[in-house]
């Protein structure tokens, strides 16, 4: 294998590695956009509720304040 072949093959490998890196980066960014932000606050981790925690009947109400 002569010198020009070696350079060509190395160039292909470089382009391939660079392309894979770019694709992974784009994929990670897309996932980051699609993943809902996690809520860390303890006081926000559960919905407001009234009544006993072990109640056999749980009424969930979706409400709008206006």
């Amino acid at each position, binding site marked *: 294998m002569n010198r020009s072949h070696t350079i060509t093959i190395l160039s292909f490998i470089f382009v391939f590695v660079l392309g894979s890196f770019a694709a992974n980066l784009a994929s990670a960014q897309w996932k980051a956009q699609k993943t*809902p*932000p996690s*809520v*860390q*606050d303890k*006081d*926000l981790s559960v*919905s*407001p*509720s*009234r*009544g*006993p*925690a072990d*109640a*056999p*009947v*749980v*009424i*969930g*109400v*979706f*409400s*709008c*304040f*206006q």
Partner: protein
Amino acid sequence: MLEKFPLQVKLVFKNYPLRQHAFAKKAAVAAFAARRQGKFWEYHDLLFENGDSLSEQKFRDIARELGLDMERFEKDINDLKIVARINQDIRLAAYMGVRSTPTVFINGHVSKARTLEALEAAVRKELQRTRKGPVVTDGGKG
């Protein structure tokens, strides 16, 4: 319902601010800001009492009326974590097919009850179904 079934019913509040109502989402955020000071339900009740006149000024007026720490309240109504929390409820509503408010779920199943009597009947039916003990009420005083 909580007065009628004090031991058997738990009420869980979920946000579904309707887009056509300009202050609905901000009201939800303000209620959660009040929650951080332990006053969610009080704030919730006053929001509904003032449903026709909601504004950013009204949110502050209600907070003052409840004796909230206004500096903390101002900080919390701009907290993106609270906005994210409201958005979680909205996504859940979309997932569960909610399109209007109030939408009531009883043990995870949507209820068609539109009156207190119908809701009470639905709760009694669910209590019988779950067989978690006798139905104890306040004797109809609530």
